[in-house]
């Protein structure tokens, strides 16, 4: 799970680099070559959908979603602390699960309607199904964390060590 999430995050990073490049080519093309990319908007749109969803699993795994931590373990004690964690992880499963479910329905609809992008006329359903797949992985990640909470703490420590050694 750790490896899958990391691989997906790296793919998301690649999507972002592609988005950046498309934008640069578009701006340069428009001003210097008088040839803007007419399809830059739709490519960036689809890329963004993939970028956000592919980063979700890694963010969840490393507990990158910010929360209000006024009530910490020092105030509420370890039992309530654990109960809070379970509630929070469960909320993550439900939230991302709903996203996955709705993306699946949306994918079917897009497929049935035969929806294409405006300029390049690319079919959009593969992108929506990929987004659905990424959401499923993210939900699964949240479920793994519910059962194995120590996984993310181990990752966090490893992160901090990397940072302190790598500067």
């Amino acid at each position, binding site marked *: 799970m750790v490896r899958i999430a990391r691989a997906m*995050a*790296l793919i*998301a*990073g*690649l999507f*972002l*680099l592609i*988005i*950046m*490049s498309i*934008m*640069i080519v*578009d*701006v340069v093309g428009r*001003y210097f070559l008088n040839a803007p990319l007419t399809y830059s*908007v739709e490519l*960036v*749109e*689809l*890329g*963004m*959908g993939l*970028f*956000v*969803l*592919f*980063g*979700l699993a*890694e*963010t969840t795994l*490393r507990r*990158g*979603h*910010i*929360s*209000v*931590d*006024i*009530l910490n373990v020092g105030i509420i004690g370890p039992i309530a602390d654990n109960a*809070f*964690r379970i*509630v*929070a992880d469960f*909320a*993550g499963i*439900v*939230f991302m699960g*709903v*996203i996955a479910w*709705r*993306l699946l*329905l*949306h994918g079917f609809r897009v497929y049935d309607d035969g929806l294409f992008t405006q300029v390049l006329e690319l079919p959009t359903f593969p*992108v*929506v199904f990929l*987004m659905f797949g990424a959401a499923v992985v993210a939900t699964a990640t949240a479920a793994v964390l519910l059962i194995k909470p120590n996984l993310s703490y181990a990752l966090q420590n490893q992160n901090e060590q990397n940072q302190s050694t790598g500067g």
Partner: protein
Amino acid sequence: MDPIFIGTSTFLILLVLLAMRVPIGFAMGLCGIGGVALIIGPAPAFSLFAATVYETTVNFDLSIIPLFVLMGAVAARSGLSSELYGAFNAWLGSFRGGLALATIGACGAFAAICGSSVATAATMSQVALPEMRKFNYADSLATGSVAAGGIIGILIPPSVVLVLYGILTESSIGDLFLAGFAPGILTVIGFMVVVSIVTYIWPEMGPAGEKTSIAQKIHALKGTWAIITLFALVIGGIYFGVFTPTEAAGVGAMGAFGIAAMRGRLSIETAKEALLETVQTSAMLFTILIGALTLNKLAIFSGLAFALSNFVSGLDMTPLAVMGVILIIYLILGCILDALAMILLTVPIFFPIVISLGFDPVWFGVVVVMVVELGLITPPIGMNVFIIKGMAQDVKLSEIYAGVIPFVLAQIILIIAVVLFPAIALWLPETAAAFR
């Protein structure tokens, strides 16, 4: 059930969930779906949520968020912070409290290519703290100036928080950026004045450094041209309407890669690190954004936002007094809530009120951000202070907070100035309109 009752109780449940440390995005999203489902039925509520998810992610304009985050992440790894600090030090170091002055200045300059306060504080403290401690600066002044300098990062464009405000309120992000510029510069100046006053009263807190020659001063500027160019390109491009803020973010991110490469700081490893950081930050931001937009719908469907603004406009208070109350609420909330969470939670509720009272949406965005910034350095929860504490473990938290107090006072004075004289924020976007 009465929609207003549903709305109110859902917001109360949301507060309970947040207190239980449910991530902000999840909590807002789930409460939003639940509340809307109770009002218009589950099927339309889920469809509405699906549309929000799809429209927020598959979106051209919102690529501005990851691109600006990437720009900051790459800039932070480019080693520019130490050169900026060196440049400001060459010019200001010989004054009393010179290193603290240089810290504030360098934070302001770094903010011009980085859209996050926490990142600014973390990056600058690595350079500035060791230096100030080497020259026997008082811990309170050293840590206080880095923590306070960091909050400039949120206001000087590009600013991720202003982007989110713009998306939530459908205000122009370009105008918001331009409007944040002058108040940001004023913050830099104000904080420098604070350092001067503090070291005037207690000279031993920040001894003056050695004088530098004119040649040294000019030589120190060498490293700063890259930042100036990139900032001019990004913000100048927005000002003159050469490209949209979204495209500016793409250009900025590419520019940051270019600067890092030219300085020999761009390896596959650093690029990977910067990208992974961006991916995680963006996934977090988009989750919160989806949650906030969903909750926004509840505020509208339940009639809560409407009822609240009706209630406030029915009060026998001048608009300025209402604004005062809102800002005081922000100040109090800022002490316990994260800046981002605070904006996303409260803006959907306060924004309609503020607009119905006739205030300018762009101006309100800048004021809100200025108030929220304060929350980053006020006890008990000040993100920037915690970061500095992490970097200087032996300094007591109370000492950092003590060092921050004069800056907090300065910031409050600045906020009052921008509230009373909206032109401070609004003149730049107004002049830019001529070019579009």
